[in-house]
């Protein structure tokens, strides 16, 4: 299932709506990295509220995506990691090293506004 990517001002918002296969996650990564350039976006929000499993592949691919987006000059924030998912990730030893996270979409937007303030007022 393809994840829709919405353009919201200077940001791209991807809201995951159902379980994703590995190929879906890789596709999302590549689409976001490409769209950051096409739309000259300053930030990316990935909403994972609907994901009931974040295993080593999903975590690693989301982390790679955030690092790739940063290399393209934009910020990423991952929002909506559920309590049980967070518990499982910590148990497995999976880390989101260097990747910003926020509680929900609202907090994610607030984070990006803060981080990209200077760029938006150029």
């Amino acid at each position: 299932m393809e994840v829709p990517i919405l353009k919201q001002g200077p940001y791209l918002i991807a809201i995951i709506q159902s379980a994703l296969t590995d190929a879906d996650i890789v596709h999302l990564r590549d689409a976001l990295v490409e769209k950051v350039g096409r739309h000259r976006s300053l930030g990316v929000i990935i909403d994972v509220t609907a994901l009931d499993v974040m295993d080593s592949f999903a975590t690693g691919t989301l982390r790679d995506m955030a690092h790739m987006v940063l290399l393209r000059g934009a910020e990423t924030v991952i929002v909506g990691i559920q309590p049980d998912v967070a518990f499982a990730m910590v148990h497995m030893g999976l880390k989101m090293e260097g990747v910003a996270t926020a509680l929900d979409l609202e907090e994610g937007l607030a984070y990006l506004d803060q981080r990209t303030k200077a760029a938006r007022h150029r």
Partner: protein
Amino acid sequence: MKPLELATETRVRVESELDIVTARMRGRALAIQLGLRPTSATLIATAISELARNILLYAQDGEIVLCPIERGAHKGLAVIARDDGPGIRDVTRAIEDGYSTSGRLGMGLPGVRRLMDEFHIQSRVGEGTTVTVKKWNE
């Protein structure tokens, strides 16, 4: 009289990425049906995801078997991941953090071990690998 057994063994064939999703969804549903806590169901689903991916990655195909288990008053779920793939040359290292022959993170098997209450792995080079893990309700 034997209590009515609602939950039965479930088998999921693993030969595509979609099967990883199917296997973990079935595992979660069965765990909930057996009365395990939602948190445990998430740990089980995550473990199944790792085990099913290992099957695809190393053996191309195999199966995940989900079995309701009982020990006295305790109920639980066993997950058996079985393949006829190349087997694991060094099982001790395969369950160490950060060890991988696939160029990936090497978090899979050690992670699964930490997610579940019991972990057993049997592997023979050229014959395949069977990983059996169990989760009990508290």
